[in-house]
């Protein structure tokens, strides 16, 4: 299942960011709420002092008596508050009610302002000790909390909004940052994508981001295993080639030696059969090895190869094969540089030349060409033999398929090898007729270099 690293990262980041947001809000809220409420408290305190100043003390039958008259200036102040209602209560030093709201609760021992419920409303109460003769009266000033709540809301909002914007910005940065941060990973995957399947060199971990190293180390481990398997296969093929060819060479030597000695015609005929079988077996062994070599796992690193040079290096051997069958083998060679495996390319061309010579009649003509057409390097072999009927052309490229009724001793592997090698080089094969609509022409055309 494909999981988005970005979504995963956001899911991981969201709860801590929300928690930080909450903490941030609290941290910003309290320091700013205190001075604001202190100002309100101070106003209430001022009212309390003003009220306390208007308590009059008189002597009544040896007892202290108190009178209070609300000064109009103070009343004005109490009435002018647009949002909140302000209540007051004045108590004598003995705790008797002098004036104001009798129900306003007194919190004995409260040192500072306190909250209380009055007339079903939350009120904030400030107590002021005001001198009343020799003693002090208690003035309570209470205010409903409309202004305060509003202030708190505003402060909360003004501190939360930037926090939320910050959080949103963080998430956006994470979203795009992850994409950017994963950039090196993307270029890494591009590099892997563009690699040739034959390129089993380890990926350079030094240039890759630190975090991807474990992945690269694992990947390089796998590449190394594949490369090792490929090396094993190549070693096996080299050994198999040696183990097969040496006894075949011995068999061929002794058969030809026996043929060179006096013997009856019947024995000679049988020896000749053995010799032919040996040659066929040797050729088959070569072809099977070539086919195995062309398998992707056994391929080697491509190198710059000029098909012209490949042909020139083999020309002598091929000319002698052709002369043995009285075939005129000729060349039309122009430079044809390709990327590939020289051994396999030689094998492909050798198979084409061998087929052409094999299926030519005595005195036939075979021509090997290399060069470039429209920027594509090519190699082709043309003969003037019987050719391949159009209906058979697709099938002759299959392994072990032989055109019905053909003579010769082929295994039907030659063209399959050519096809295998060509496709391994990204090259195409074209089967057609030779010049003058006679014979056969097989061309291998390589991708633009």
């Amino acid at each position, binding site marked *: 299942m494909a999981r988005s690293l970005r979504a995963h990262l956001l899911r991981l980041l969201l709860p801590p960011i929300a928690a930080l947001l909450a903490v941030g809000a609290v941290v910003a809220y309290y320091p700013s709420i205190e001075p604001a409420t202190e100002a309100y408290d101070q106003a209430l305190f001022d009212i309390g002092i003003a009220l306390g100043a208007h308590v009059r003390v008189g002597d009544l039958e040896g007892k202290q008596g108190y009178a209070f008259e609300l000064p109009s200036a103070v009343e004005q102040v109490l009435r002018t508050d647009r949002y909140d209602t302000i209540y007051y209560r004045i108590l004598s030093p003995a705790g008797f009610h002098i004036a104001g709201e009798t129900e306003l609760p007194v919190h004995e021992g409260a040192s500072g302002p306190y909250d209380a419920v009055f007339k079903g409303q939350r009120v904030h109460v400030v107590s002021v000790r005001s001198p009343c003769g020799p003693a002090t009266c208690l003035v309570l000033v209470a205010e409903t909390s409309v202004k305060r709540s509003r202030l708190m809301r505003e402060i909360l909002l003004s501190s939360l909004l930037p926090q939320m914007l910050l959080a949103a910005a963080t998430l956006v940065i994470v979203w795009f940052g992850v994409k950017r941060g994963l950039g090196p990973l993307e270029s890494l995957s591009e590099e892997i994508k563009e690699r040739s399947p034959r390129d089993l060199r380890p990926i350079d971990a030094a240039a890759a981001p630190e975090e991807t190293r474990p992945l690269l180390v694992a990947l390089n481990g796998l590449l190394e295993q594949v490369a090792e398997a490929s090396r094993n296969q190549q070693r096996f093929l080299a050994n198999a080639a040696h183990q097969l060819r040496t006894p075949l060479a011995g068999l061929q030597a002794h058969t030809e030696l026996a043929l060179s000695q006096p013997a009856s015609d019947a024995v000679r005929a049988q020896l000749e059969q053995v010799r032919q079988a040996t040659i066929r077996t040797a050729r088959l062994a070569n072809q099977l090895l070539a086919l195995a070599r062309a398998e992707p796992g056994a391929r080697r690193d491509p190198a710059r190869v000029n098909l012209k040079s490949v042909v020139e290096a083999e020309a002598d051997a091929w000319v002698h094969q052709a002369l043995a069958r009285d075939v*005129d083998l000729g060349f039309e060679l122009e430079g044809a540089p390709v990327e590939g495996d020289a051994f396999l390319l030689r094998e492909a061309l050798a198979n084409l030349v061998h087929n052409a010579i094999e299926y030519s009649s005595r005195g036939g003509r075979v021509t090997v060409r290399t060069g470039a057409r429209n920027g594509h390097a090519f190699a082709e072999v043309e003969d003037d033999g019987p050719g391949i009927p159009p209906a058979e052309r697709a099938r002759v490229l299959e392994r072990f398929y032989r055109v019905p009724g053909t003579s010769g001793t082929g295994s039907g592997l030659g063209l399959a090898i050519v096809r295998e090698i060509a496709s391994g080089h990204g090259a195409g094969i074209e089967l057609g007729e030779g010049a003058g609509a006679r014979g056969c022409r097989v061309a291998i055309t390589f991708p633009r270099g």
Partner: protein
Amino acid sequence: MRLLIVEDDAPLASGLRRILEAEGHAVDVTSRGEDAVSAASSERFDLVILDIGLPQMDGFEVLRRFRAASSGRGAPMQVLVLTARDAVDDRVRGLDLGADDYMVKPFAMPELTARVRALLRRSQAHGGPRIVHGPLALDTVARRAFLRNEPLELAAREWAVLEVLLAKVEKIVSKEAIIQAVAGWGDDLSPNAIEVYVSRLRAKLEPAGIRIRTVRGFGYMLEEFKG
């Protein structure tokens, strides 16, 4: 001629020995590279047939020691390398180390004997003042040619082309290779000019049974003289 076969596969070694003895050579066989090195240091062989895939000391190492020990006196020992491996690099490496020719197993015996003859001929020609090819003899010191013991007139360039072909009897030689070998003469030579020299050589040599085959689009091959 004295030949040494270095091959660890006994049936193949014995087959090769009998075929080469039938050709009239004196043949020794060893299956170990070390023995081959010591044999070649104490005795003189005209040609060694050397298998690359030997146990312990492999053919490349044997070849390297042969070449390191070669005194430079007399005709050099020819080395024909045999291999069952098919890597192109092996051939290049073998030739780089000083192999004179190279054959991949398995091979047809007539081809082997032809190559052996060519190498021995080369070894004789090398250093010697006289190159012989059937009825043709070249005195390289006096720069005089004889056909059936009669003096043969050869122009300087005909002589040069013939020398190149004689160095590689039964091997195809490209026109470029001929031009390069003859180019010491200073001026440019076109492939057409080579054709002219070859046709003149043919006119002079073919009556004596010496044939120069044309390899279409490639070059020429001086065929082995078959009498």
